[in-house]
């Protein structure tokens, strides 16, 4: 058995606010191997980003706190690390690809200043080595004349180049885990494709594991090996990409897939999911999706357990029972 690069076990991250306790991440577990990409999908506010921030231990203070669980990176629990140790991990072993690559670089420092700052934090090498590493990594992400670009400031680079600079940081620091938090949401479609292929190249080059947060199922299909669907702080279904699209088991997953516009079939109105995600302060008892679920039964008063219905396909829903007992409307999408 291949050991996991990252293994998150029963992670709980709560926000303690005046309105009450918001359980943003409530018992999330998943594992990731090197070279593998896990898609994390779900509506806004379902806990995808907070899960990522928890791994980096950058949950907004003082309201947010990780109250339980384990985050094992190469076998070491990140929740037991000191702040100094975490700083060595952030940007080193674990690279973050931010939501908005356009504004992620400090406008008043040069590319060299920011790239070298990051490299020096994570790699012990002489000054000349830092320069060479910076140049090499920029070349790897296909930035033309890297020596010149290093002296530029962020505003002198195009949006696409700024993204590649961020990618170069991860390459230069030899990240083994890449966390991409909706990296393409702010981009138009043409740049999106370029950026996605850059991220894929980076992952392969570093042989890193990647967590890819998105709410675009189309991107999931192209980027990911496995998918975890999150709803109200919990993973409701996790499966290989193929299985998710061919035989989704959780009603929420099915609804998500149905709401993706398709080019190959004629549809009238695009399907949407009725209602809104429940407020995280005040989750309904039992299954959190129950109020929006068209097939809820009395059984749904109790929180459903996670069960493996096929190798690597996990679902938390009362409508699914036991191994092999697939639901009547499989292959709906």
């Amino acid at each position, binding site marked *: 058995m291949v050991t996991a690069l990252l293994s998150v076990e029963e992670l709980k991250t709560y926000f303690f606010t005046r309105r009450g306790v918001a359980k943003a991440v409530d018992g999330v577990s998943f594992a990731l191997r090197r070279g593998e990409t896990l898609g994390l999908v779900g509506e806004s506010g379902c806990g995808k980003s907070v899960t990522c921030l928890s791994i*980096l231990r*950058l949950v907004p203070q003082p309201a947010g706190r990780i109250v339980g669980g384990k985050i094992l990176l190469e076998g070491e629990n990140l929740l037991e690390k000191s702040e100094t140790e975490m*700083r*060595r*991990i*952030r*940007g*080193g072993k674990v*690279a*973050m690809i*931010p*939501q*908005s690559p356009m*504004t*992620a*670089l*400090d*406008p*008043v*420092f*040069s590319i060299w200043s920011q790239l070298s*700052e*990051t490299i020096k*934090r*994570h790699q012990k090498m002489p000054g000349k080595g830092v320069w060479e590493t910076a140049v090499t990594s920029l070349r790897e992400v296909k930035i033309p004349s890297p020596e010149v670009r290093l002296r530029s*400031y962020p*505003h*002198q680079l195009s949006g696409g180049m700024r993204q590649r600079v*961020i990618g170069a*940081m991860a390459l230069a620091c030899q990240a083994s885990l890449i966390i991409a938090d909706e990296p393409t949401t702010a981009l138009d479609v043409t740049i999106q494709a370029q950026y996605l292929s850059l991220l894929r190249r980076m992952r392969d080059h570093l042989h890193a594991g990647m967590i890819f947060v998105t709410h675009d199922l189309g991107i999931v299909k192209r980027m990911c090996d496995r998918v975890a669907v999150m709803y109200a702080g919990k993973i409701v279904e996790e499966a290989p990409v193929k299985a998710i699209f061919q035989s989704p088991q959780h009603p929420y997953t099915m609804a998500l897939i149905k709401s993706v516009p398709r080019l190959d079939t004629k549809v009238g109105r695009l399907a949407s999911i009725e209602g809104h995600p429940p407020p995280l302060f005040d989750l309904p008892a039992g299954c959190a999706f129950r109020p929006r679920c068209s097939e809820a039964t009395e059984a749904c008063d109790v929180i459903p357990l996670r069960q493996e219905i096929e190798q690597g396909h996990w679902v938390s829903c009362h409508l699914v029972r036991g191994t092999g007992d697939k639901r009547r409307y499989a292959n709906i999408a």
Partner: protein
Amino acid sequence: MGAYILRRLLLGIITLIGLSIVVFVLTRASGDPVALLLGPQATAEQIEAERARLGLDESMPVQYWSFIKEAATGDFGESLFYHEPASEIVMDKFPATLKLIVVSLAFGIPLGILIGVLCAIKRNKAFDILGRTLALVGQALPVFWVGILLVLIFSVKWEIFPAGGMSGPQSYVLPAATLGSFVVAAFTRLTRSAMLDVLGNDFISFARARGISEKSVILKHALKNAFLPILTFVGLIFVRLLAGTIAVEAIFVWPGIGLLSYQSVLAGDYPVVQTIVLLFGVVTIGVNLMIDLLYGQLDPRIRYT
């Protein structure tokens, strides 16, 4: 860059000409200095003769033209009371004022920035609330009131610092503290809000995510970005202090330009008043130009065209 400076200097000259017209008209509209000069016993003939000697019987445009012509050669007229060239009197007093302002800024700006940064880091904690309250109070209290209060406490009651005059370093303490309290308060408030603004940016969260220490995030990345509004404010506050010195110097009998302008306005010594106002104008324009040039050093996005 060179063309930019040249254009700014030309604009400065135009501003100064405008300023000279305003101050020229206003000083003459505010009363007849000759009556004050000669006293109540003077006869009508004497007054007439004195007005003719000073050229005050000419029309306003003619007077202004001769003033400008002489000013261009560095002659700003003669003080009506000291009978010395106004420029010499003003330049004689200017260093004392400049020293006072520089001392106030030298401790006020760093202290204000320090408290402002700490307030921003400790947002909504006790330190922040205390700092914010004090800054608000410091900015709201009138300078003359603070000055008199400090004299009452430190000179009259405890006799630690001299109440007035310019002698040793000790004589700087109370006037500089008076001006400085305003500076500290203003910079605390400004730095706090500028820092909070910057700290909300994506590049700050990303800096943390790339493993940069919190110290570097605050002192390097956030502070350098927050410096832009702070720098703008340095120019504004410098000019505010020039005006503020009038009250402070009057209270502490500081032998500077503020006290001189106060006395000259009361006495109707218009050549001196004009010279002071024009000097303030030159300093204001110069400080603003310097700050605009410093911007470019701080923010690579700024270009001079």
